[in-house]
């Protein structure tokens, strides 16, 4: 791991030490085999099947399906709202993690547990909760049923824990003396946050953001009751996929699924690239 530091004559650089691969032994070969079979059965083969199904109608068929006015609207709504929610989560999740790690206050333990409720709750239960709270019979007098805000709110609800939970342990492990060093070098609290703390948190934030986005794109249960699933207005991609299947149109369902798949993949890659940049810049 540290070979480069032991060779002072080498020109210095930011290169990571390269870990030499070890040739496979019989045991590690078996391990790799099991891992690959498992991964293939659960992930690769189903994904490939979806892509194959989507391509059955040929490129034209695929293109016609996804550019269908109603389908395109669901994809736009789903991806757009998921991106927005992820942005909100980046700010709020980091803030909540910060409060949980750095501050001491009454009820902290309770909040700590409550954060995980959206994880633990079956999504349809979450949907029911949202419906009773913000539906037509809202005790708060807030009725957002059958609006896009309902979609946004449902996404927010189910994705809340992701960034909090990825950032929290990293924040807890941060070297606070580095912050004190920055302060004594004249950095304001904001500068210290931006230049010292944030770069250390970015990988965790990026990981949480990717999870949060992926979860939002596929969300169904929590919004299906409150959003009303109005075509062109509040219908999301997952609902659209389901109705395609119900109308005996698996090709169309697979086409939408492939689009979502591609977008999720792209978002994860973009987040990773961004994360590396921010880390280097400091």
């Amino acid at each position, binding site marked *: 791991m*540290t070979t*480069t*530091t032991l060779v*002072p004559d080498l020109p*210095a*650089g*930011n290169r990571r030490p390269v870990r030499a691969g070890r040739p496979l032994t019989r045991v590690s070969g078996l391990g790799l085999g099991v891992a690959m079979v498992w991964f293939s059965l659960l992930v690769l083969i189903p994904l490939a099947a979806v892509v194959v199904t989507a391509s059955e109608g040929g490129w034209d068929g695929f293109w016609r399906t996804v550019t269908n006015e109603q389908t395109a609207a669901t994809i736009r709504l789903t991806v757009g709202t998921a991106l927005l929610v992820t942005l909100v989560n980046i700010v709020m999740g980091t803030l909540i993690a910060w409060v949980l790690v750095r501050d001491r206050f009454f009820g902290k333990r309770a909040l700590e547990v409550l954060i995980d409720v959206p994880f633990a709750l079956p999504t349809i239960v979450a949907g029911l909760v949202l419906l009773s709270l913000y539906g037509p019979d809202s005790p708060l007098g807030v009725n957002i049923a059958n609006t896009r805000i309902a979609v946004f709110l449902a996404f927010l609800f189910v994705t809340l824990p992701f960034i909090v939970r990825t950032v929290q342990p990293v924040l807890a492990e941060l*070297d606070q*003396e*580095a912050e*004190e*060093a*920055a*302060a*004594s*070098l*004249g*950095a*304001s609290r904001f*500068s210290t946050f931006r*230049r*010292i703390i944030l*770069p*250390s948190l970015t990988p965790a934030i990026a990981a949480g953001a990717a999870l949060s986005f992926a979860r939002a794109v596929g969300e169904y249960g929590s919004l299906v009751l409150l959003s009303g699933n109005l075509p062109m207005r509040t219908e999301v991609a997952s609902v659209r996929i389901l109705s395609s299947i119900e109308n005996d149109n698996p090709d169309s369902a697979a086409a939408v699924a492939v689009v979502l798949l591609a977008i999720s993949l792209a978002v994860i890659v973009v987040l990773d690239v961004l994360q590396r940049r921010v*880390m*280097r810049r*400091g």
Partner: protein
Amino acid sequence: MSIEISNVGKRFGDFVALDDVSVNIPSGRLTALLGPSGGGKSTLLRIIAGLERADTGRVEIEGVDATGLPPQKRNVGFVFQHYAAFKHLSVRRNVAFGLEIRKRSKDDIRRRVDELLALVHLEQFGDRLPAQLSGGQRQRMALARALAVEPTVLLLDEPFGALDAKVRKELRDWLRRLHDEVHVTTVFVTHDQEEALEVADEIVVINEGRVEQIGSPDDLYDRPANEFVMRFLGPVTQLGDQLVRPHDLQLSTGAGDRAGVPGRVTRVTRVGFESRVGVITDDGQAVTVTLTRNELLALGTEVGDEVRIRLAPESPTTTSTTPAQSAPVSLTKKFASAGGANLTQTS
């Protein structure tokens, strides 16, 4: 006077970290805050830096009242025991940090960083990340980073505490030479009396939140103000009710000699250049005497010999508060631990 600390007190809950401490730290010198772990010396350093706020009292830096100033405004350089490196930034960027915050021009920063890297002998390591440096190199980087902003005072909190013995000794010498070059008012915290005696111009001994004594290394060693300072700064042994340094005791075997305390040699141990001779006095007190190898050879004494112990003239002594009778066991133990204390004390 460069740093003036008056009547500073600090509590953490029920624990009194500092109890009405007043110290003046002179400009341009290298001052050590010396004391056992948990004695309050780091707290005092952090109060000077503004990283901790005193409950009571005043801190003045170069005539400016700094008591309420945040660390950003004090213009102090602070070096931490565990380096506090900015892990995601290269060595150059670490050193440049304070200058970038001060919005110096790019050329200025480059020139100054080059200078500092040369000063701390890290020229070839500028593009590395801190994780790719050894502990000693990281600490030198931290020092360059602190010096970059031309601080009024440089504060070091157990700067060599996390390093192994050999590197620690090298860096200690190097810090002394660096200070002779740079002349910035420097305060460093240590629990290692050898480090303080070797490096510092001035030592402030702090124990249980109070200042025990302030003075030059010679002052402290030769004229300890009390038993604590005497014991903390070097090995001690007890003769009668006096605490003395084992190397200030002399042995004689002459039959006609009437001066000194009579006793019998119980043990002779040679440790490198010095020999430790254990003597039981006729009153039953165990005393340790340290001789050089040549002195021991000249004396030619062996276990079982009758000897007389005398204190060399003008040697520092303090009155022991421990009763003489209980001395034998605890004293030999004390000496054994004091001899190895330089390397084994931990914070």
